[in-house]
């Protein structure tokens, strides 16, 4: 079983772990950014404080997979919310429906532009992508992924952290505890 620790363990004056950088999971980005105002207030403010404290000790990064996962969350969430609150009839999410709304509805387009600005800000400033060495993929990871313990994004994040000696994962997702490996997982 992998190593899961609490956030206090890495914030005390002489932490036991040789961590230099921390990769954030999508669950943290959602709690921090709260893109739909849905995250509970105490969870959001606690996450913002935790991230700021960690940033004063470590480099915090996202990976491109995390950014892609978060983008999909915002895209589908925005579409569903828009459809449910602005249209008389629900149309299941499809990329064709999404593109059609983007083309034909000025209201949809305005809201989407705002979401895109927020998305860019999130990954340009709050959680900039990890340095290149952290995101080099070995094609062999596809052989190792059997989908049994977590989804592909979590699996890749774990493998990336594991391949680096001074790297941990910050997450609110309990699935990370199921991985059997050497990566350090910090649970909030």
């Amino acid at each position: 079983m992998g190593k899961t620790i609490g956030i206090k363990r890495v914030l005390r004056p002489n932490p036991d772990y040789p961590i230099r950088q921390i990769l954030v999971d999508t669950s943290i980005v959602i709690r921090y950014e709260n893109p739909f105002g849905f995250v509970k207030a105490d969870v959001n403010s606690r996450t913002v404080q935790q991230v700021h404290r960690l940033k004063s000790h470590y480099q915090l990064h996202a990976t491109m997979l995390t950014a892609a996962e978060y983008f999909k969350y915002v895209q589908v969430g925005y579409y569903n919310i828009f459809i449910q609150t602005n249209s008389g009839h629900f149309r299941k999410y499809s990329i064709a429906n999404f593109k059609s709304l983007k083309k034909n509805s000025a209201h949809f387009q305005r809201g989407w532009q705002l979401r895109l600005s927020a998305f860019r800000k999130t990954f340009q400033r709050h959680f900039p992508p990890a340095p290149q060495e952290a995101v080099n993929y070995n094609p062999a990871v596809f052989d190792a992924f059997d989908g049994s313990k977590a989804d592909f994004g979590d699996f890749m994040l774990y493998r990336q952290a594991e391949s680096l000696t001074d790297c941990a994962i910050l997450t609110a997702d309990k699935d990370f505890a199921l991985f059997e490996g050497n990566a350090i997982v910090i649970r909030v």
Partner: protein
Amino acid sequence: MTVIIVCELLQTTSLLSPDKGRELTEKIRECLQDDADVMLDFRECEYLSSSFLNEAIGKQLIENQWTAAEFKARIQWQNLSEDAEIDLALALENAETKLHLIRNDIDPEEFYNNNLPDV
């Protein structure tokens, strides 16, 4: 127009907790009751959280049953960073959605649970 210097009022440059948002809400409410428009001055603000903005800004919109345009006619702001401007615009948009749900007798929490994808 009444100018509120937010960090001075709340005695902090980190605007993170919903409690601080509630303090600002109270002050804004007083001003609005006196029929004054409000200018929120965010000078010296270092950090802003979504929960602070939802409490201070979003709840004003919901409480007064305003649109974002009506909100902006009564409450303005200055000295916000470009990033914080985006956060504030999102807080207003999210509050408009919540108000819509409340008006239609839909529980916002249940709505979000049903409509946001799992990650």
